[in-house]
């Protein structure tokens, strides 16, 4: 990871949100495209070894992005995002869900609400993601995201300790 780029996590239990901030070394127009077009989303959205494949993406308020997360064994997990608010190159918000291949949602997991904001400064684009959940339980599993480097260091210490035993 390029450590020169900001990567920030914070968690707020009171309003049940996780806030993620990340800088990208590219202009606003391009980063916006990467978050809002099927062709580009499919190239990065699914964390390896998964890949994502978009079935349809109707980029407008009230529209839907329907895609599958495909496992290395070629099993498809269908997901969707129901777009709520779109302000070109500024904000896009949606509600996510697991669903079937027709976009009919199921209750495998509670839905998260995403608000993604985009700003550019000197050719570096910052994306702020706010993930809102319905319950504190959902958040608790993610609270751990509130720290990174400090804790990673700590874990390295722990690894050394465990090796020494």
């Amino acid at each position, binding site marked *: 990871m390029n450590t020169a780029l900001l990567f920030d996590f914070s*968690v707020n239990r009171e309003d049940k949100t996780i806030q993620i901030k990340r800088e*990208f070394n590219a202009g606003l127009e391009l980063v916006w495209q*990467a978050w809002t077009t099927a062709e580009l989303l499919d190239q*990065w959205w*699914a964390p390896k070894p998964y890949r994502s494949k978009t079935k349809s993406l109707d980029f407008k308020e009230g529209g839907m992005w329907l895609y599958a997360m495909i496992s290395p064994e070629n099993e498809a997990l269908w997901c969707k995002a129901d777009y709520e608010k779109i302000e070109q190159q500024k904000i896009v918000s949606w509600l996510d869900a697991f669903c079937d291949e027709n976009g009919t949602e199921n209750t495998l997991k509670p839905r998260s609400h995403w608000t993604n904001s985009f700003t550019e400064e000197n050719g570096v684009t910052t994306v702020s993601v706010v993930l809102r959940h319905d319950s504190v339980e959902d958040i608790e599993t993610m609270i*751990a*995201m*509130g720290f990174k480097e400090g804790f990673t260091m*700590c874990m390295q210490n722990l690894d050394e300790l465990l090796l020494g035993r």
Partner: protein
Amino acid sequence: MRRDIFQAIADPTRRAIIGLIALQAMTPNAIAEHFDATRQAVSKHLRILTECELVKQQHQGREIYYSLEIEKMKEIDRWLDQYRKIWETRFNQLDQVLSTIKKQRK
């Protein structure tokens, strides 16, 4: 009072304390020397960590030594790893996509 483990480690001082005692058991005084915080503040952090069963106390003579509950930490680490990796992987992939496109456009 049973505290929330993730809240316990949401505080930077407490994370630093965990980092310290991951290597060796320490007395509260020895721990406090590493921080600008008052001895009282450090004691409070230790109490919270103890209540979450993240650290354990051992009495040796008149001193109390604090050390890490390894199993509990591993549990958190598993959570952490999962989420951190997902996001880091995603964003690193996006970095790749962006830099590829930028090269093509030049």
